[in-house]
């Protein structure tokens, strides 16, 4: 198959179903909002919805990166541990007092977090591409490494931001609002917009999807497969770093259990959002919607009075499957 043929085939296919597929997660989200309003009238209040959107920020931002990795046919299980690791190092840096000015401390810490995130991602990428190890195993390994290093850094306890000046200056990054909308929501939108631009409008983005749909074809078409793949992990690392930067001011501390199981939540958000786990299709806005869905399901369960606390996990699982089924049936009808 030549590149042009692939491109036209793709264009034709996308015109037929892209609309419904892209819309499906949002339909599921709308249904959940209706369900939530029945469960508890407070659910639909602006305060509650803003709370839920704000705290979905970590998973949403991480999942934007995961969309790249998964679209290119990879998988990253290390993101939860990476959050704990990057956030811990960043807090330790801010505690070290290397820079006396609090504003500059935060700026330097942000730069450092992004550098560490990118480096962690690069490590994942190089192990899978240069080392030729299955991404599942490679990132399972780094997952243990990042988690273990965090536990070691904290000696099993907590790493807490000590400097009160830095704390009060940094706090608004999670708790602050602009025009009544919490700051993390802007970060979600900006990250997703950049992600969508790169994935849909740049050559690199098209290469990611091509590598994910058929590695051999991509290779023969002259796409540098390894480099494209490695870069997806770096993007994932950058997204993790951004998530860390808004995570740190929330509790001002990390512990050995920070970000536990977040990798599964991020992957679920990506798949609920309409990205295929086998690669070749990436939907950034669907992913963000998927992250909202996950957080809203938990929120509805807690606000409703008729679900036993022992059954929460079961009902959450069922709702996610139903949401997926709704999506699939919509797509089939078209």
């Amino acid at each position, binding site marked *: 198959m030549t590149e042009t043929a692939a491109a036209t085939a793709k264009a034709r296919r996308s015109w037929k179903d892209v609309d419904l597929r892209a819309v499906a997660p949002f339909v599921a989200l709308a249904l959940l909002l209706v369900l939530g309003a029945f469960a508890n009238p407070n659910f639909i209040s602006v305060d509650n919805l803003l709370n839920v959107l704000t705290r979905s920020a970590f998973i949403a931002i991480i999942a934007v990166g995961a969309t790249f990795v998964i679209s290119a046919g990879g998988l990253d299980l290390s993101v939860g541990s990476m959050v704990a690791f990057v956030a811990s190092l960043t807090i330790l840096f801010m505690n070290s007092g290397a820079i006396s000015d609090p504003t500059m401390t935060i700026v330097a810490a942000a730069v450092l977090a992004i550098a560490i995130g990118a480096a962690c991602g690069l490590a994942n990428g190089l192990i899978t591409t240069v080392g030729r190890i299955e991404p599942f195993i490679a990132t399972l390994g780094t997952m243990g490494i990042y988690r273990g290093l965090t536990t070691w850094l904290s000696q099993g306890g907590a790493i807490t931001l000590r400097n009160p000046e830095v704390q009060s200056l940094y706090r608004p990054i999670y708790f602050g609002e602009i025009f009544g909308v919490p700051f993390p929501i802007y970060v979600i939108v900006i990250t997703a917009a950049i992600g969508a631009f790169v994935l849909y409008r740049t050559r690199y983005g098209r290469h990611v999807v091509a590598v994910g749909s058929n590695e051999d074809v991509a290779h023969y078409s002259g796409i540098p497969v390894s480099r494209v793949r490695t870069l997806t992990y770096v993007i994932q690392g950058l997204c993790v770093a951004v998530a860390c930067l808004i995570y740190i001011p929330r509790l001002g501390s990390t512990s050995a*259990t920070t970000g536990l199981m977040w990798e599964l939540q991020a992957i679920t958000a990506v798949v609920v959002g309409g990205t295929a786990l086998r690669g070749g299709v990436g939907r950034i806005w669907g992913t963000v919607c998927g992250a909202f869905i996950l957080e809203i399901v938990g929120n509805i369960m807690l606000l409703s009075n008729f679900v036993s606390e022992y059954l929460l996990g079961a009902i959450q699982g069922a709702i996610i499957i139903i949401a997926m089924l709704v999506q699939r049936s919509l797509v089939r009808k078209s």
Partner: protein
Amino acid sequence: MRKRLIGVAAVAMVALMGVAQAQDKKTIGVSIPAADHGWTAGVVFHAERVAKKLMEEHPGLNVIVKTSPDPASQANAVQDLETQGIDALVILPSDPDPLVNAIKEVKDKGKFVALVDRAPSSNDNSVRDLYVAGNNPALGEVAGKYIAEKTPEAEVVIIRGLPIPIDQQRQDGFDKGIAGSKVKVLDRQFGNWNRDDAFKVMQDYLTKYPKIDVVWCQDDDMAVGVLQAIEQAKRTDIQYVVAGAGSKDMIKKVMDGDKMIPVDVLYPPAMVGTAMELTAAALIDQVPVSGNYILDATLITPENAKNFYFPDSPF
């Protein structure tokens, strides 16, 4: 027959070693889980702290502390300790039932065994000589009683840990503590002993209930998330939060007279030190210590807080 032979051999060995070591050196082996969260980090800190103290106080005493990440490697660690020639074993098992056999093996050789915190299903003197533990039902009961006394008509939300027996014991204890008062429990949800999850649960409680008087979250880690959620919502109806365990951050708040954390309920990781001291007393001073030693779930107030404050501990 073979069993008896091994038994005889073991008795002979113990007797020989006893003769050899009676005058010069005694060794206590301490096996604890690796620090994987706040409380176990505290266990490691206190085990090492008390080990150092004991060796300073008793020049003839050697204390070896070993940490293990899971039950299988802890079973190996117990064997390793035994081959090094210990006179007593102090063990806080990461999971007691899978470790019973390893512990029994040491016990059958006539060594003194002290079991800490987590009891196997059959917790009798065939497994251990001494059992030291915190009091989970009392942890709930003390919190419940405090709330019932201080705010007799409080509407309380509860954040639970994980669905395991310890958590249930604490809940039952709490219900006993508030029995007969007008304290009303609005809701109970799991926060998995995790700060971030507790933050979420608390945010949702604040949305769900327009008026909450008291939060009982039975764990100092979760209290961190609860306090942030309350602060963010700028809600003033919540009078105070009752946590538990005795982490340095929460005890500091109690000491400083923080209105939101007026008290804490003790479930101290330092209990491993209690077991070590008692074991040393049995070995060196030959005082009888066998039996159950259940620590009170002490109510930590500003008056007694400094007794439980360890600023150097990671927890």
